[in-house]
């Protein structure tokens, strides 16, 4: 688990300047955490990096950004350490480099996934079955997606355990986890401390655009996830099989979820084209964009598929949608998707280090 020393050293150099200044204390969780230390271990820097939401408030307020000789760009320094920390903790380690190539990996997996799903739906088409199950049996879907969902999560759990050790985390307390969930749920760290939002798409202008699009993405995703879960429960517990009607739980959760996810990811992608890439990790930009677009395609194909129910287009729409979902699941530990888990870990760690405060 070797992180790049020069990235950590540069972040440390900047953190030491920040620690002598402290003007940004009110922006986010990073600064109180930073000001608590006098010297920064590699684990401290890794913790700060994963606590940083890249809101950029500190960059635009900084009196020491280039051309000043101190050349501070804390959002970028922390973004580079953050990306590197995910690679360093990736398990199995051989997949770590997918982080830098997640755009390519996604495209490749997506093609493969689509081809596989299409071949299966054509080649192993069930004798009978309603709706989507007319193309692929429930048993086959479960056989593919249960491991494709659970194995990456297991890999991520190994990564997170390593990360927790790196940052020196102790026993996880429920109160800390609750604090972290509340903070993430409200995206408190993108509110800018004053509640005006963050700096992203228009230099030093504060806005809630990124926070709100992220909220739409997060809650859209969770609703979709809940929709699938409710379908699973209906199927196995109550023996109620798909297709489900409009007023069923899977649809009531999934439709707004898919819609939110579409809007949120489209918004995030649009904002990303406006923002200065020099304030993030340049090597991560492509992968992050690919991830946002993948989520968009997952939700868009899901919605279109529902609209196309009963038409011939399902024959290729279903494999396409399933292919995107498969890609998303498989790349979870090696793409931007992992940030949510590391962020929660960092917020939990931070909650354990500081006195309770209003979130």
């Amino acid at each position, binding site marked *: 688990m070797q992180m790049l020393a020069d990235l950590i050293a540069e972040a440390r150099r900047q953190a030491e300047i920040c620690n002598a200044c*402290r003007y*940004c*204390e009110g922006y986010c969780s990073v600064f109180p955490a930073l000001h608590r230390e*006098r010297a920064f271990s590699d684990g401290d820097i890794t913790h700060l990096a994963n606590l940083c939401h890249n809101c950029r408030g500190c960059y635009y*307020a900084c009196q020491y950004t280039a051309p*000043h000789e101190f050349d501070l760009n804390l959002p970028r320094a922390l973004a580079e350490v953050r990306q590197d920390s995910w690679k360093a903790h990736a398990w199995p380690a051989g997949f770590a480099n997918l982080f830098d190539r997640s755009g390519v990996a996604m495209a490749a997996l997506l093609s493969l996934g689509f081809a596989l799903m299409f071949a299966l739906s054509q080649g192993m088409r069930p004798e009978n079955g309603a709706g989507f199950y007319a193309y692929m049996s429930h048993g086959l879907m479960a056989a593919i997606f249960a491991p494709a969902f659970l194995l990456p999560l297991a890999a991520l759990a190994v990564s997170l355990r390593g990360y927790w050790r790196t940052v020196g985390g102790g026993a996880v307390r429920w109160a800390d986890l609750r604090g972290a969930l509340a903070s993430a749920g409200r995206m408190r760290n993108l509110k800018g401390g004053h509640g005006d939002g963050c700096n992203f798409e228009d230099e030093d202008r504060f806005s809630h655009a990124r926070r709100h699009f992220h909220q739409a993405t997060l809650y859209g995703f969770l609703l979709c996830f809940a929709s699938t879960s409710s379908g699973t429960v209906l199927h196995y517990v109550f023996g109620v099989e798909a297709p489900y009607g409009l007023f069923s739980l899977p649809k009531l959760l999934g439709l707004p979820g898919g819609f939110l996810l579409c809007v949120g990811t489209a918004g995030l992608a649009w904002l990303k084209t406006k923002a200065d890439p020099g304030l993030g990790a340049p090597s991560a930009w492509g992968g992050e964009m690919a991830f946002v677009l993948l989520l968009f395609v997952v939700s868009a194909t899901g919605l279109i598929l529902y609209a196309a129910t009963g038409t011939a287009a399902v024959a290729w729409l279903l494999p396409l949608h399933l292919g995107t979902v498969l890609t998303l699941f498989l790349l979870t530990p090696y793409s931007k998707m992992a940030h949510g888990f590391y962020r929660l870990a960092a917020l939990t760690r931070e909650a354990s280090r500081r006195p309770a405060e209003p979130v």
Partner: protein
Amino acid sequence: MSETWDIAVIGGGNAALCAAITAAEAGARVVILEAAPKPYRGGNSRHTRNFRCMHDGPLGPLVESYTEDEYLADLLKVTGGKTHEGLARVAIRSSEECLPWMQDHGVRFQPSLSGTLSLARTNAFFLGGGKGLVNAYYRTARKLGVTVLYEAAVAHLERAEDRIVWLDYTHEGKNHRIHPKAVVVASGGFQADTDWLARAWGPAAKNFLIRGTPYNRGVVLADLLDQGVEQVGDPTQCHAVAIDGRAPKFDGGIVTRLDCVPFSIVVNKEAERFYDEGEDVWPKRYAIWGRLVAAQPDQVGFVIIDAKSLSLFMPSVFPPIEAESIEALADKMGLPPDRLRATVDAFNAACGDTSKFHPTELDGVTTTGIDPPKTNWARPITEPPFYGYSLRTGVTFTYLGLKVDERAQCSVGNRPVANLWAAGETMAGSILGQGYLAGFGMTIGTVFGRIAGKEAAAHANAS
């Protein structure tokens, strides 16, 4: 198009922006001529962090109350009475209404920063510091239609009798002449012109570091004084503090401060102590150390502490020089090792009972039989590793400026210049004759910037 301005505001810091915003809200067409390029806009305001504010009861981030009389008393204490009381009271009284005005114009505050709790009652801290404030004001000014020109260096204001008739500036390699109806000068002092500083203070000033912007070169100030505009403030003096000797020549700002003097001994390049390091708590004493260091050979000092004091002060921007023995530390710092040893030994021998040591209070832990004494926090320097910092004089601002009345208007002889106002550092010498009170520069800039903007707009609208 150059003929269409009602008001030219010279400078791009807090006072200039407050003037421009106020004038634009009164309907005037305003141009800001900022000498710095955009990344360095905002003059010394970009290095500030708070605003000293009178208030009757909790206000914004401020707790309890801070009355006009207490505020004035604090000011008189630091200026030793060198204060124009009338103008000071204008600044103090108006500060209370300024805070909500600042919020209305985009400035955001935060709770008192860690390490500055002593200011929680008197000073409102800007979220993100002064550059955050400056950014917010530029956004507001732009919304109000104010034109901002960066790298626009004003060379000359032509005075004819009681008026400014035109002004010359360069921008993008070209000379321009405009005839605004009114002019607000808010372009700071002259501290970044080290030749001028050396003429005023003496050749030693060449060794001073400038804590703030390199663009405050006093061009407009000199131009107006040459034309007989009334001046104020001691032309030879500047406000200076002792800062980390490794700081950049310009723009080092807040991070270059060192708070370790009370827990140290400070020696000159001969390794001799020269002043009581424990005279008072550091915030009350850090200003005099600029002068003390300036009076030493090569204008440099050296702080020596030991391991037990390292965590008692705010972290420094550069790590201290570290060594296992006093002699090795002296070597690393370019000091004569045997003489530093002798100085430390003599100091240690003069230390007595240290059981009452208290880092944040005047603890009376003093030396005996040594000159100069150390009258508080006098603990022997015995515990390795030993740490050292070099100290240099860091200039914050100069006192020489334009004399103004309560309406921020400049004058020649006894007569006002009908269309010339001044705000901020360039007229602060009227109120701050010497010394400095934390956050008061921003108060002067905000109050008199707003007054200048209002008066200039009234003049422009009437003519």
